[in-house]
């Protein structure tokens, strides 16, 4: 008993020190406390953003009156710094207060997740990637569409001026890679967002309502799922004009059946769970039961599927690019960069290798996070 009290006193003292430390180095106290995931991420973001602020000061100042995406980047920069600092301050101070009561399922999932090292590493990569994507206008050394001297600067290998070389139009590969991150991540995020929303709603309705409605929805799901997805995508995109909008829309509208199936399955089991019966017995409306009691409980596998889905979508976009159906130039996406660069793999290997690796590591991160989430969100797997 005395031991635990002593321990908690020292913990509190350490926390006070932590607060001071967190004012300068957010994340450091958490790192010191062994929470390398949260702490490392905070520190990484903090230092990274500070570096941008210092190294690209001129660009930052310029951005104040720049285009909307420059201003968005600026806002992101400020928001990221503020969030990290604020979180770290709050978190470091939390250790001082009384132990929190009421640990929700999400809290438990977060705890389980943060123990999974590979998944946390994946999450760090993803957060950093999204941050980079938003900060791109401040980060990119060159305009991604800017063509250099076509005679002397084409296919220049890795060099100081062009860390990742140049392409056939003497454009900077690094800048294009950074801008490509925006497109690829956006496509993944938005199309999965669409498909998950549709899938969750339709799945929940099918599962909860049953009967004819269920029959119809599930037959449609069967049909769409029976289709080799890629063939359907190619058919639609090839026959219409490829554009980011079309790609996102088609991906979003063809990927939902998987989610719908998952949600329906979950809802069918949940529907038999007694808390749902209790909700009915308490006179709750169907809408309330679906939105408040079924969907939140069915969401865990959906989140997992969505995470994995973003990765899959990025790979799919690359595949479409291979067939010339991806995002159209001059807009860079990783998929088009890999696909275009493949023809010169042997003499300008950097053209497709870097975006290729970017895809692999991004998708890998999403998959690791997805697997981690699966383990963390499934109470059965939580030890």
């Amino acid at each position, binding site marked *: 008993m005395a031991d635990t009290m002593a321990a908690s006193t020292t913990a509190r003292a350490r926390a006070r020190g932590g607060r001071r430390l967190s004012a300068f180095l957010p994340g450091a106290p958490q790192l010191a406390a062994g929470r390398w995931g949260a702490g490392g991420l905070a520190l990484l973001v903090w230092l990274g953003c500070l570096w941008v602020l210092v190294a690209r000061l001129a660009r930052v100042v310029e951005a104040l009156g720049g285009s909307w995406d420059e201003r968005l980047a600026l806002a992101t920069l400020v928001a990221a710094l503020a969030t990290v600092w604020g979180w770290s301050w709050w978190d470091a101070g939390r250790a001082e207060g009384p132990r929190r*009561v*009421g*640990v*929700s*399922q*999400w809290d*438990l999932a977060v705890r389980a997740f943060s123990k999974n090292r590979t998944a946390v590493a994946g999450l760090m990569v993803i957060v950093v990637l999204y941050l980079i994507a938003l900060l791109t206008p401040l980060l990119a050394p060159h305009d991604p569409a800017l063509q250099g001297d076509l005679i002397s600067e084409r296919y220049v290998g890795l060099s100081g001026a062009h860390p990742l070389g140049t392409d056939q139009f003497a454009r900077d590969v690094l800048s294009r890679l950074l801008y490509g991150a925006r497109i690829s991540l956006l496509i993944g995020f938005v199309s999965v967002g669409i498909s998950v929303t549709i899938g969750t709603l339709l799945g929940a309705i099918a599962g909860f309502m049953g009967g004819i409605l*269920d*029959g119809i929805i*599930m037959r449609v799901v069967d049909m769409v799922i029976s289709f080799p997805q890629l063939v359907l995508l190619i058919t639609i995109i090839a026959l219409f004009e490829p554009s980011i909008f079309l790609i996102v829309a088609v991906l979003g509208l063809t990927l939902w059946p998987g989610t719908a199936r998952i949600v329906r399955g979950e809802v069918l089991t949940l529907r038999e*769970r*007694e*808390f749902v*019966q*209790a*909700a*009915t*017995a*308490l*006179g*709750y409306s169907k809408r*309330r039961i679906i939105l*408040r*009691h079924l969907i*939140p*409980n069915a969401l865990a596998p959906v989140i997992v599927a969505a995470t994995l889905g973003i990765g899959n979508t990025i790979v799919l976009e690359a595949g479409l690019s291979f067939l010339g159906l991806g995002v159209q130039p001059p807009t860079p996406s990783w998929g088009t960069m890999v696909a275009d660069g493949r023809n010169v793999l042997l003499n300008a290997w950097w053209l497709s290798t870097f975006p290729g690796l970017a895809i692999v590591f991004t998708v890998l991160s999403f998959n690791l996070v997805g697997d981690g989430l699966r383990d963390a969100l499934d*109470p059965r797997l939580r030890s």
Partner: protein
Amino acid sequence: MTRPVRGDAPRAEPAPPPTGRAAIDRNGPPLLEVRDLAKHFPVRRGSFGRVRAHVRAVDGVSFDLWRGETLGLVGESGCGKSTTGRALLRLIEPTGGDVRFDGQDVRALDRTGLRALRRRMQIVFQDPVGSLNPRLSVGAMLEEVLTVHGLGLPNRRDRAVELLERVGLSADHIDRYPHEFSGGQRQRLGIARALSVEPDFLVLDEPVSALDVSVQAQVINLLQDLQAELGLTYLFIAHDLAVVEHVSDRVAVMYLGRIVELAEASALYAEARHPYTRSLLSAVPRPDPVGRASRSRIVLEGDVPSPIDPPSGCPFHPRCPHPAKDASCRGIVPGLEGRAESGRGGERVGHFVACHHPYHGTPAP
């Protein structure tokens, strides 16, 4: 009957009430009247498949329940006792029969009527894990009920705390999540949720079956206290005969979707008349090593038949150990018949049995 001598009773909660329970007024109309309640589940194949057969889960159940009374409903798994409880609340739509609650035809209610009814009838489930939404904190769960029914104004949180305290939990618990509670505490939460709408009638669906013995006693005591305080009416569904005897005023025994015997608890346990009730009672293991040698046990042969294809005539006849078993048992379904006892209230109170050859008198020890 020999009783084991027990040591000192452990530190008890408030002293037990001196005698059983308050007398029940059976002069007025019953709070709940159930007539020929039936629920047949169709057995389908595929999503548009045709109905191949019916599971006759509940097959003509009738009973009355007066205010403040506890009716115990016992039977083995699959006998239809849970389905009965749920059909009463229309959590499962009954396929036949009549349910009247306080004079109202429950089966005829529309959505608003049903909503109103559900403020008066509630249910407590067996599984303390599955019956609570794992994503809602206790406070959120209780406040939601109050919000939906427009209760507990102005401060719902105070009301939630009040409810928690009523079931023996404390205000500290309000921000916790179901998984942070033990089984017994979760069952208390289930009770608190049911009480939040201030119902008159509770279906208790195996409320203590999943609990350890020591905790089971706590919950049983709580239920009895609440009944005494709030004048609640219980339908207590369980498979544990000892528990049912302990809490019930009257007891109904179900077998294959039908009530085979219905009587005052004391009468049923002392002189069961149906062969099934007798075998059931004799099969209960007793914590009485001294008397075990002298007890005679009726061990039934075989298993309970499938409710999809129940036996003709008396559903119990294939397993019935009664020496007088005859052709009528195989051919004719016995009705629930018996003598209404006078002087204790309504017509339907008495000892009823659905058997062509009911036993008389006390069984052998």
